């Protein structure tokens, strides 16, 4: 788990909290993906049911407290997303790369996110997962990037990686990038007001 050790390195012995918001449309694989980020249940392959409202995953590792907010992607719960924008250090946006028709909806939700008052002028990193890469006919990360219009994000660090949340393939790569960015920002003392 390079992510945790790197953060630990960066923060020394400080008791530090990292809050990450995980969003994306319904059925994009957010909960499954989080199951791989979690230290304990990485090997679990239990049936994942649609999240209602949101789930909070809190775990402590290497003297760090992690809070991962797993938001429901269903249309009627998407208005909950914005209530957490203010208090998070990073955002993970999961895209179902097989659902080409709903890419426009994902893009619309991303627009909403990026134009939100609590996100617009901040420099918090955004990590995109082009999930379900194993399914035949899935878009490549570059195609996903184009249809989501990610190239328009110019004031934030962002990264897109393809993933398979069921096997965990590509998840670590993305999370390592996110860890790197968080360490960088810690070193630069950016957005310290958001830290505890």
């Amino acid at each position, binding site marked *: 788990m390079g992510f945790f050790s790197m953060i630990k390195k960066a923060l020394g012995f400080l008791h530090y909290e990292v809050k990450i918001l995980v969003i994306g449309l319904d059925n994009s694989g957010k909960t499954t993906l989080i199951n791989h980020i979690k230290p304990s249940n990485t090997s679990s392959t239990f049936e994942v049911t649609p999240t209602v409202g949101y789930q909070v995953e809190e775990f402590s590792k290497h003297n760090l407290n992690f809070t991962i907010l797993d938001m429901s992607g269903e249309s*009627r719960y998407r208005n909950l997303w914005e209530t957490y924008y203010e208090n998070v250090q990073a955002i993970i946006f999961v895209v179902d790369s097989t659902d080409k*028709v*709903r890419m*426009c*909806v994902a893009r*619309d939700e991303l627009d909403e996110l990026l134009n939100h008052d609590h996100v617009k002028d901040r420099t918090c990193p955004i990590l995109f997962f082009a999930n379900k890469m194993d399914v035949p006919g899935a878009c490549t990360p570059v195609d996903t990037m184009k249809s989501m219009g990610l190239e328009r994000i110019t004031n934030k660090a962002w*990264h897109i990686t393809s993933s398979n949340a069921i096997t965990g393939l590509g998840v670590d790569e993305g999370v390592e990038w996110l860890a790197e960015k968080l360490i960088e920002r810690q070193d630069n003392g950016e957005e310290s007001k958001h830290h505890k």
Partner: protein
Amino acid sequence: MATPSSAGAYNNLAPTKDGPWLHAWHDPVSNIRAHSSCVRLVDLNADGSNILLVADHDRKMKVYKGTSVVSEHQLLEQPVSLCVFYTSLDGGGGDSGAPRTPAIGIAGGAFVFIYRHLRPYFKFTLPPIALDAQDESIWVEMTSDAIPVPQGLEMLARARDGGATLSSWSLDLMQLNDENTQRAFVQSKKGIPHKQQTVVTCMETMRKDTDAEDAVSSLVIGTENCQVLILDPSGSKVVCTATLPSPPAILSITGLYDVEWRIVVGCRDGKVYTIKNGEKRHDAVITGTVIELETQPNSIARIDKYIYITTMDAHLLCYHIKGRKVFSMSLPAPATNLGVVKLSRNRVIEALIVSLSNGEVRIYNHKTLIHSMQLDDVVTAMRWGKFGREANSCAFIGRNGSLTLKMMSRQANLEKTELNTGPPAEQDIPLKVPKKTKLYVEQSEREVANAVTMHRTFQRDLCRIRLTTAKAYVKIITNGEAGVSMGGGGGRGVTNIRMNANVVGLGPNFLLKVTLTNGGGAALSDLNLVVAYKPEVYKSERPVAKVPLLLPNVTQLYEVALLCVHPEGAADPVRIVLVNDKSSVPLYSGVVQMPMSELAEE
């Protein structure tokens, strides 16, 4: 991936967004030809992901899952309508919790073909029409060779002239001219039971007892012989029949069959009828509410208590369910389709979606235009519903065979209120009314107390003023002072002389040019034109000009020279008087304003 660090703002003007619409997918060559009743969005596999079902005009049922055609099925008849319904026979649903799979009904000709799991399952045939007794007996005799065909023909013609409705066999037979072909036609009908079939004109579904997406529902069929039939949920028999005055063309259904229902039917006679449930179960009543339209309707939609109708003369009409007209709105082009957008948020928001023949797609909330979107193609079919996993989607099929999928943004606001409705803002700004002073109050009180006296005083004074004015006027004209000719000219009646005077020169020498016209009917003679002036200002050699004769309508010019003798060149009005020796009153008089005079050169 690159991490640009420039602080450029995020660009919101994405080309994929048009107002509330998100552009999901467009296939310009899908080669679909269909109208709205043949296009449905349905959860065919009960997996929460809806697919698009199209009964194409080329007799194919096409199944779209996502962006690709999954399967195509050949149809036996030209499709009229494709409906999806959940029969009570289905496994699952209700308490068992397992999702239901729907049945598909495709109407064509006199049949409704029912498919389950995309396989033909059952065929429902419309009940035959009762034949005319005469027609039937003639055919029995002809096919059993009891009477020769020409005689049968004659009898059929007589029956027709007698007002009988002939069967299609008879009509076909009478079309044939040659006796041999006629006989062959009759021969070919031997052994075939003589039945008259009607055809399906329109078809929709009605839910049975629960208002849910996958609730048990049944087919409602409109037929060419002016009937509306409601089938039982299995689709095998008719449970309720209503007969209208005209063949139904459009059905719009609300309510539940077991509770209360209402079918708004647009008929071919340009009227909109309403059928609702009767007192007893399986009873249908045609209500007295008949909406007579000026032109043919082409789509009907229902929201709450309102019926929305688009007509062929490019109008969107709204009627209350009781028949009262709410509004009529002219559209820029004739509408091709009318649908209802249903957004389920905190509360359900319903709006109208209208596609026009100029390729525009408009959203109306009641009569407020919310948004207008231009598509590349004229929409022939439109279906709002769930596509894939997105509930707020709309499929558009274009005239050139294009298929467009649009989705509605979560942030879309379909409740924009019209800006210029209600009282204007100025109404709330109070006028600056001055305070009532004591004087004002006293005056008002006096006016109230003495209203009658005040009015009379005012009227009397008004009369006096008028009298004084009239007297003064009469005095002026009788003295010949006014520029009005008067006097009898010696008792020869009123003359009518027009005079026009011009002053020529800068001074001190002036020339007064006077033109005289007799506007009356008789000639005037022995007149004198006299110029009267103040002797201390002006001097004239000949201040009198003789006018020997003034003929009617002949303009004559007279010139009188004047010299200004005033040392400072002052100006003074000069009076020109036309007199004759028979009257003491001048015939005409006028005043000429003289200009300031230049000083005489020394």
